[in-house]
């Protein structure tokens, strides 16, 4: 499939009073046309910073691209001027933010906010823009759009506001849509509606979506591929089935086992011990090693390279090195692996 975005060896730091925070330490991934890529990880893992770097939304005074490139249609976004970037932002790449309460302007009717990108990027007239705005609102499932475009954000519920934000993001038929925790602030029933809406719209306009979340249930629902981030790096990446049924990195194991599934018995919940690493002084080896019971001696000394598990599955852990000892993953993970043809615990098929 066609690659629409390529992130190559991206390194980015923030300069703070305490020193240099190495927020992204070598991130590589591609985004394919029409796919949904989910990025998961805890706060501070660098998932939001990565997408803000793509959108160039980080303050230039305190952030610095150390190396790497972000290729979009052959252009390196890290090298563009502000003016050039403004032509891409909101038109080719747009973003949905986490909190629909604060990402809309409270003093502007929503119609005006939806037509803004149209007037700016598409060069359509006001009357035409208004018509498109009404169509967009109808598309995202807003009843009576002709009346509602005159209303202000406070007159809408949380779920409706997120629909409006989605309408704005889709106004210019973007090639890439970045959704940063778009449903975290919403209730499960509203979340389900918004996710269904995003999937429908994706089919209609063939956008690629980068979906950031820490809710693994949502990931299983929306993603084609998943990237797991930890300590400023992608530690594992693969198709949604590979990540959920054949995970290789101990951090992915920890994440998957710390969520109770609805059929977990009363067994104690697995909790990853400790806290995320301090990126002011990142560990030189595997950043997860100090929290991992599977850490090898070399994990402390040297950061693991990326090992290839399949054509689409990559993980960065020394456990995949041919000389590494065979370790037994946690019980909950073995249960998952039993469902995956090709894993060493696979049950069923020809045995």
């Amino acid at each position, binding site marked *: 499939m066609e690659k629409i975005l390529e992130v190559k060896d991206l390194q980015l730091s923030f300069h703070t009073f305490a020193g240099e925070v190495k927020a992204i330490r070598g991130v590589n991934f591609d985004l394919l046309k029409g796919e949904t890529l989910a990025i998961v990880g*805890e706060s501070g893992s660098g998932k939001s910073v990565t997408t803000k770097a793509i959108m160039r939304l980080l303050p230039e005074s305190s952030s610095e691209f150390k190396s790497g490139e972000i290729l979009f249609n052959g252009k390196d976004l890290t090298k563009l001027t502000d003016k050039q970037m403004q032509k891409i932002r909101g038109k080719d790449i747009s973003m949905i933010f986490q909190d629909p309460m604060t990402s809309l302007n409270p003093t502007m009717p929503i119609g005006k906010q939806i037509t803004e990108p149209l007037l700016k990027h598409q060069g359509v007239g006001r009357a035409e823009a208004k018509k498109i705005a009404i169509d967009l609102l109808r598309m995202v499932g807003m009843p009576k759009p002709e009346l509602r475009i005159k209303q202000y954000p406070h007159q809408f519920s949380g779920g409706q506001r997120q629909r409006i934000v989605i309408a704005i993001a889709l106004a210019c038929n973007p090639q890439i849509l970045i959704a940063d925790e778009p449903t975290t602030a919403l209730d499960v*029933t509203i979340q389900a509606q918004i996710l269904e809406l995003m999937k429908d719209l994706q089919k209609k306009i063939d956008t690629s979506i980068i979906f950031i979340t820490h809710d693994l249930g949502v990931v299983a629902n929306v993603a084609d591929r998943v990237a797991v981030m930890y300590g400023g790096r992608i530690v594992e990446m693969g198709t949604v089935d590979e990540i959920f049924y054949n995970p290789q990195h101990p951090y992915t194991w920890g994440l998957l086992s710390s969520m109770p599934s609805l059929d977990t018995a009363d067994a104690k919940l697995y*909790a990853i011990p400790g806290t995320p690493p301090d990126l002011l002084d990142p560990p030189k080896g595997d950043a997860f090693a100090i929290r991992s019971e599977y850490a090898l001696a070399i994990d402390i000394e040297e950061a693991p390279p990326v090992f290839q598990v399949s054509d689409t599955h990559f993980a960065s852990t020394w456990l995949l090195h041919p000389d590494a000892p065979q370790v037994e993953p946690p019980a909950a993970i073995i249960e998952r692996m039993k469902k995956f043809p090709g894993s060493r615990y696979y049950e069923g098929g020809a045995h």
Partner: protein
Amino acid sequence: MAEKLLEIKNLKQYFNQGKANEVRAVDDISFDIYRGETLGLVGESGCGKSTTGRSIIRLYNATAGEVKFNDVSVHGKKSKSELKIFNRKMQMIFQDPYASLNPRMKVLDIIAEGLDIHGLVKSSKERKDRVHELLETVGLNKEHANRYPHEFSGGQRQRLGIARALAVDPEFIIADEPISALDVSIQAQVVNLLKELQEEKGLTYLFIAHDLSMVKYISDRIGVMYFGKLVELAPAEELYNNPLHPYTQSLLSAIPLPDPNYERTRVRKSYDPASHNYQDGEEIAMREVTPGHFVFCSEREFESLKLTSASRV
């Protein structure tokens, strides 16, 4: 069945009562909480689950109804000393660990505030020792006592909130979305801590949350709220395996699970309150369909629910 610790009877909590914008946040709900159990309370935002918790602990004056704790009414006029006795036994852990700790107080003073108010410690040495002990109970260490809240991460702050609640040796703790603000890997740590403390000290919890998979994990029984009403109350397993109220079914069908195969086949049910088709004069109340499983329904629905449940067994 175990002994009742709390008895909530026809609790109503209206805001702006009598005005045009009257809100019936909690509208006539009744349930019991047994000693040593965890009762989960779930529902969408605005359904009244937090208001229920806050009314129980007397943060609001209930509009009507009764809350009995150890057979003593919680609401109504009370003298200062009566209130003190009650305040010691019931504590609360709040949702936002950033907003619920005073940024200008040291951890030592935050945790010891309850000890001071209730006169539980005699000397400053005893006060310090008790705080150190509490910090260790929640998995922090005594060096943390001299720090300020901003020096802690979200998960650590929530541990401080738990330590503060435990300081006065309560019997009953209301945890209002204690883990929603935390990362997944940290959520598990806090939930395990709450479970351990319950076993050790025989605590009773009211656990309010909207994360349904976590609620099922921690709760013995679960109540589902919708628009100020309790619509279903059942043992946790039973509620998930055999949800009877259409709203509960809709809520459960909306939860995404970390399992792609399940997600590909999950069908979401939507809930339409009009589907009940209640006639005028029909009495809608909590009715016990199978032992321990209560559903908010009319007599007519009750009969058909009993039939379907009987055929299931």
